[in-house]
């Protein structure tokens, strides 16, 4: 029986009124792959942050290698062998792979770098040369470097936070094999953190489940535990509504003809001959790994990018030469992927951001009516249950979920006829995701034509009527929702056409 290499008892961490962690007991066995399952906001990230020394708990104790740790900070945690791969990578883009792996003070492969690099490149199926710049790598390759970083820093306990979020199904499989090799041959202890049921069953040997800051199940044997059991533990009373797909579709509201963009630096067209159309009351899902043209397509349709070839026709009118204003007039709303940066302006107040779409309605000629703006904001807050403190506070003081609610509320309150939504529920907790899904479906039922761009296949399957897969800027395959499954969509996402 494997030794317990780490254990925690009664860990509690509070932020203001919210208990992020509530008397959490947790443990890890050496050399095993553990799963930490829970919805967004359940406390998984908080627990990991405590283990890696970023958060200090108010209560509770941590034992590493049977020694009690009195105050863990990131440096100490790292020395004790705990390393974490976050969802947003922490690599210096302009430096080489070698630099990123060796600059850390904890690097153990100083003299035998080549040997180690070759060994682990094989395990991870990494084909890049160690002098290549990180900026030249694909997302999947960057993740491999992030994991290798942990190995090079002698982190025997590896915490991986939602690692498969950015991978194709095929890359996910590759990751599974690499992790299995690491745990068996290298005796690395791995924690796989996710909210995806399927993956936790595929990747792990034992499962821990968290809900609302509490550890609701420990050490469940992956091989024998049932899906329904896990679902109930994860979500408790919240039932995910199944969406009825009997929606009536009306006339075509959006037509996109032959959209192309010039070749980019790496050599392929960011977008190449895109043709699609969406009818009223229809949800068209766009699947694809991030970076295959989704952002560009969304920005072109919304009018932000103007430098393209092809035609955009909205409600029968050709707006290809026109800008954002023309789209707004034709009742198109855009929920961009970059919440902060495109949808919302950083460094600007919540109040200012709330009226971005229709600020000319909050003015009397050249005079800006603060009163009108406040009324508008209050309307949004009420309609969409947004939690905000002060209107004049800067926008990033809102939580991610509330920022997204504000953004979506702002765009949807006018009952738009065409909605372009890109990654609308990324990073949000379960109740926020449910609420936003309901919003999207109710807009669909009101007759909006909706383009849903998402990396979350579950979300796409749940909400879409049709599915398009983008790969390297082209539409590689189209599906009707009843023909689509994870396998054929996943293959398409990786560029394989059957």
């Amino acid at each position, binding site marked *: 029986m494997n030794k317990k290499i780490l254990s925690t008892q009664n860990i509690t961490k509070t932020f203001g009124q919210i208990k992020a962690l509530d008397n959490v007991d947790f443990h890890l066995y050496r050399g095993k792959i553990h799963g930490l399952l829970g919805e967004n906001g359940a406390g998984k990230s908080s627990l990991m942050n405590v283990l890696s020394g970023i958060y*200090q*708990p108010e*209560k509770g*104790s941590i034992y590493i290698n049977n020694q009690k740790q*009195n*105050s*863990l*900070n990131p440096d100490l945690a790292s020395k004790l062998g705990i390393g974490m791969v976050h969802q947003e990578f922490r690599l210096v883009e302009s430096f080489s792979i070698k630099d990123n792996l060796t600059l850390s003070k904890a690097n153990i492969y100083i003299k035998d770098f080549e040997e180690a690099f070759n060994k682990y490149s094989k395990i991870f199926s990494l084909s890049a040369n160690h002098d290549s710049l990180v900026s030249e790598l694909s997302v999947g390759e960057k993740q491999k470097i992030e994991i290798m970083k942990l190995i090079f820093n002698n982190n025997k306990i590896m915490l991986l936070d939602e690692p498969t979020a950015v991978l194709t199904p095929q890359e996910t499989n590759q990751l599974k094999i690499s992790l299995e090799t690491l745990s068996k041959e290298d005796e690395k202890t791995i924690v796989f953190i996710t909210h995806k049921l399927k993956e936790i069953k595929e990747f792990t040997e034992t499962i821990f489940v968290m809900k609302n800051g509490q550890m609701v199940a420990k050490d469940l044997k992956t091989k024998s535990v049932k899906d329904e059991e896990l679902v109930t533990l994860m979500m408790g009373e919240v039932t995910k509504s199944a969406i009825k797909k009997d929606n009536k579709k009306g006339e075509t509201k959006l037509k996109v003809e032959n959209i192309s963009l010039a070749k980019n630096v790496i050599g392929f067209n960011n977008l190449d001959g895109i043709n699609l159309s969406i009818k009223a009351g229809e949800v068209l899902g766009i699947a694809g790994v991030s970076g295959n043209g989704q952002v560009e397509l969304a920005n072109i349709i*919304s009018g*932000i990018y103007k430098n393209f070839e092809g035609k955009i026709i909205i409600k029968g009118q050709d707006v290809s030469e026109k*800008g*954002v*204003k023309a789209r*707004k007039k034709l009742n198109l709303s*855009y929920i*961009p992927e*970059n919440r902060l*940066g*495109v*949808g*919302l*302006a*950083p*460094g*600007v107040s919540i109040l*200012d*951001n709330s009226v*971005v*779409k229709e*600020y*000319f309605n909050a*003015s009397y*000629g*050249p*005079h*800006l009516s*603060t009163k009108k703006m406040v009324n508008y904001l209050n309307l949004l807050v009420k309609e969409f249950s947004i939690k905000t*403190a*002060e209107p004049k*506070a800067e926008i990033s*003081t809102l939580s991610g979920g509330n920022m997204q609610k504000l953004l979506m509320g702002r765009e949807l309150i006018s009952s738009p006829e065409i909605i372009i939504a890109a990654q609308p529920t990324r990073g949000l907790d379960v109740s926020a995701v449910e609420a936003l899904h309901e919003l999207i479906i109710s807009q669909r039922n009101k007759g909006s034509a909706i383009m849903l761009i998402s990396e979350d296949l579950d979300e796409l399957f749940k909400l879409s009527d049709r599915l398009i897969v983008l790969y390297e800027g082209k539409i590689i395959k189209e599906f009707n929702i009843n023909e689509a499954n994870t396998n054929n969509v996943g293959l398409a996402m990786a560029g394989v056409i059957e």
Partner: protein
Amino acid sequence: MNNYILSKKTVVNDFATFYSFLIGLFIAIFIGSVILLIQDQNPINIFSLMIKLSVGSINSLSSSLNKAIPLILAGLGISIMNSVKLWNIGAEGQIFLGAIAVNLIYINTEIYNSTLFIIVLLISGFIGGSICILLPAITKVFFGVNEIITTLLTNYIIIGLTVYLVNGPWKDPKSLNFPAAAYVGDEVYLPTINGKLSSGFLICILFTIGAYYLKEKSVFGYEMRIAGGSAMTALYAGINAKQKTFYAMLFGGGFAGLAGAIELLSQTHRVSIGISQGFGYTAIIVAAITGMRPLGIFLVGCLFGALTIGGTVIQTIGVSSYIADIIQATTLIGALVSQFFFTYQIKEVKNG
């Protein structure tokens, strides 16, 4: 072992800037006192003398407020540019070019109506300041060139131009010891209110209200804020970020140019290297301390004007006028330091 954690406060006290300023001022006075003590001066005497001679009489108060005019106007310009998140380090040069523009128009035009002439000259000053910032504006908006460096370097170019003009084409033969242009005629002197306080101060008040309205209450101000936040968001809002940035910069330059025009028409009455003694840089401090708020700029500008007069006056008893500069700069450092405590909190965490 105790750990200290640094974290940003989510709600910031609205009066934080004001309190920080007071704290900074207090620290500055303290440090100024120390410097005076080291020089065998009595701080209490010196400071009360400074106060008495800067605001103790109508006459001295008027001088102080006159000194405040360029600080306030240039500071307002800086605060407008701050709406689009840009720095105007070039106020000094813009002040000079504003004065140069006034002189240029003056010697080449004749308008018989005095008031009209003065108005035309003031507008020329404003335009002169805008022209000064034109190159930085174009390069910033179209090419993304760092405006801190371009506005800064333009200062030296314009000051060099000024030196050239007052030693060359505009050299006044009657001014023997000091290179300067010829005096402008008294028909274009800015009228004074009580014989000392320039009507330029009224212009100041007007422009303060104008800047406040522009920044806080107008649609243009809103558009500037969004443009300064994110060009993409602005694009989505239908705001032409480049245009707003460009105009904000022209305003910034224009306000400083106007300051130069007023300096010429009310204080020096001619172009010379004495048009500005670092006003453009002090204005940056004034604007920064107040968190770029027009009303605050007005008040702090007046205070700094009094400080400068106080500093000049105590030279007569042998104390260096630089004490005023030091107090001004230290006030801001002190304000910055205390602002830290208002924005962040340090928590001590014990583990057990």
